[in-house]
């Protein structure tokens, strides 16, 4: 007789009607977002596809060389070349476009929120549990409102990716701003800096290396969402993985999978390299 008594509260229903309410009330807003997001993705995608394939490979080499080493540059361009030989060039470009768009939006939203949290302990206090929830909620769940607001397609993928990938950049921005050496802040204050000058000239630049670490994490999480997001109709490498699962096509599954791994390695190493470049000279206060 251990069954739970028959009391039903269906919080789910409330959430459902809340979401519908939002959808109808802010329809114009969602249309606007849809437009901006899809234009951005398509723009980036078109641009990447417009680049001759060899030029893209050279660019990757140069990035790898500048932020890491020559060997890294060579390795990364070989990876990209291999993805091309799998016949996944276009899918790769779409995936990169989705990730870039997601990350850019993450930064635009995340950095100001992080800064605000650093300045207001109260805001930080209420925001933190939300961030925890965003990160621990199974990422599939985000797909539902995504479809609801934006229908099937890349924009939904971005929306779901955003929610999942936003927390690290917010958290690390807050941490980074709070961590700036007190004496450095005071010395800027003692010269009569305004709050805005302080933020722009001192706090953000000082915080940049840590924020970059957040960007790195956010990017990696966006990449991790690639396959999941393809369930709501995102194209790109994730879609190929999904197709291969449906067809039980081991060859395609492996090629698409390893392509994602290659991208992950390249993006991780390069963003990491960027963070390290920023780190230079900023260790000492």
């Amino acid at each position, binding site marked *: 007789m251990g069954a739970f008594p028959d009391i039903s509260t269906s919080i789910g229903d409330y959430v459902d009607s809340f979401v519908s309410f939002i959808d109808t009330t802010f329809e114009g807003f969602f249309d606007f977002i849809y437009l901006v997001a899809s234009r951005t993705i398509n723009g980036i995608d078109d641009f990447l596809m417009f680049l001759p394939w060899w030029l893209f490979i050279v660019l990757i080499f140069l990035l790898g060389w500048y932020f890491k080493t020559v060997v890294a540059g060579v390795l990364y361009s070989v990876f990209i070349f291999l993805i091309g030989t799998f016949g996944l060039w276009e899918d790769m470009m779409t995936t990169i476009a989705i990730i870039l768009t997601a990350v850019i939006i993450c930064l635009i939203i995340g950095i100001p929120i992080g800064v605000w949290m650093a300045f207001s302990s109260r805001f930080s206090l209420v925001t933190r549990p939300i961030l925890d929830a965003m990160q621990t909620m199974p990422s599939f769940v985000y797909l539902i409102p995504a479809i609801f607001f934006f229908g099937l397609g890349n924009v939904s993928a971005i929306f779901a990716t955003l929610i999942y990938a936003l927390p690290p950049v917010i958290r690390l921005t807050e941490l980074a701003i709070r961590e700036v050496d007190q*004496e*450095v802040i005071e*010395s800027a204050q*003692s*010269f*009569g800096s*305004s709050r805005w000058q302080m933020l722009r000239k001192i706090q953000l630049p000082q915080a940049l290396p840590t924020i970059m670490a957040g960007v790195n994490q956010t990017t990696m999480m966006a990449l991790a969402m690639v396959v999941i997001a393809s369930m709501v109709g995102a194209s790109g490498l994730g879609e190929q993985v999904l197709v291969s699962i449906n067809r039980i096509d081991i060859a395609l599954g492996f090629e698409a999978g390893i392509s994602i791994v290659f991208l992950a390695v390249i993006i991780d190493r390069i963003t990491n390299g960027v963070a390290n470049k920023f780190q230079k*000279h*900023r260790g000492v206060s």
Partner: protein
Amino acid sequence: MTTKIKLEHVSKIFGPKPKSVIPMIKQGMSKDEILAETDHTVGVYDASLDIKQGEVFVIMGLSGSGKSTLIRCFNLLNKPTDGSIYIDDEDIVKYNSSQLKKVRQEKIAMVFQHFGLFSHRTILSNVEYGLEIRNVPKEERREIAMKNIEIVGLKGYEDKYPDELSGGMQQRVGLARALANDPDILLMDEPFSALDPLIRREMQLELLDIQERLQKTIVFITHDVNEAFKIGDRVAVMKDGQVVQVGTPEEIIESPANDYISEFIKDIDRSKVFQAENVMIKPNALVSLKDGLNVAIKEMEENGISSVFVVDRQRHLQGIVTIDDAIKGKKEKKSLEDVLSTDVTVVQKDEYVNDLIPKALESKYPLAVINEEEKVIGFILRVHVLAGLAANDVNESDEYHA
């Protein structure tokens, strides 16, 4: 000299309800009692100071005595819980934020213990910072910054980053950055404490040198007594958040206000604080050249001394004559000029006792002390130099003279 900064009954309490503690302190509760009972920390209590235009004012005290808390009130990095702070006769505690910004931009600059440099900026743009936020045009602020980088001796380093410089050099950047704003007042919170003793000494001299040229009003914090007495025109001693004594280094050494201060200055190297003027004896007798031998002998006999300085009408030193030489000279019918010995060591009145020691040891006559106009104002015997080193009142050595 005009008053530049005036503090009236400034208190700074840390805690949730700082104002509520003020009456308790007035009732005489100690810092520890207040901490135990109300969980408030008394940073500074009832500090009143009067800092003059162009002086180097040192605040010293043990760790935790409230020095930093007090100096941070001067530019309102700490807002006083109670009291007023007048800069050029205006109470800055009452300022609104834009007035405050203006004072910080134009009148007061601060140098920090750990330098507080902006690690993401080059030396040049660190030094430019204060001008940059005042929207000084790029060309102009570059020029001013370069000039100040040169003043602190860092020319050629302007494109380096702070982490590429040694500690001493970093603090020079801190100093240049403060000077670039051309402030009237320079606040320095233990600026040299993080430096090696050798570099530190060098920086102290350099600061005094810069001060001589630029004539800023400097408020300087240190917990090192020797540093305090070396660079301070006047020194305030703090204990448990209160200012317990203010005075010139000599005043504090000669009459410490209480045991705490005596203990504090116990280890002071007195020879580097006391100057010739402080240990010399004012001569009862001086003989003029035209007075002749008889007068000289009479003066020495009357005053019970064994030698006397001979001066001209302007009191410029001509030489010294001993009683033996004088008597011998009189028998041989010589004049005062003939028996005069010119082998006298002359010292300035502001020479430190430390520098007098070798001179006193070498000279067979007393040292002659002169002022800026080269007039003789006193003499120093070996024993006076030694007395200057000992803790007792120097005047006790009077009886030894002759």
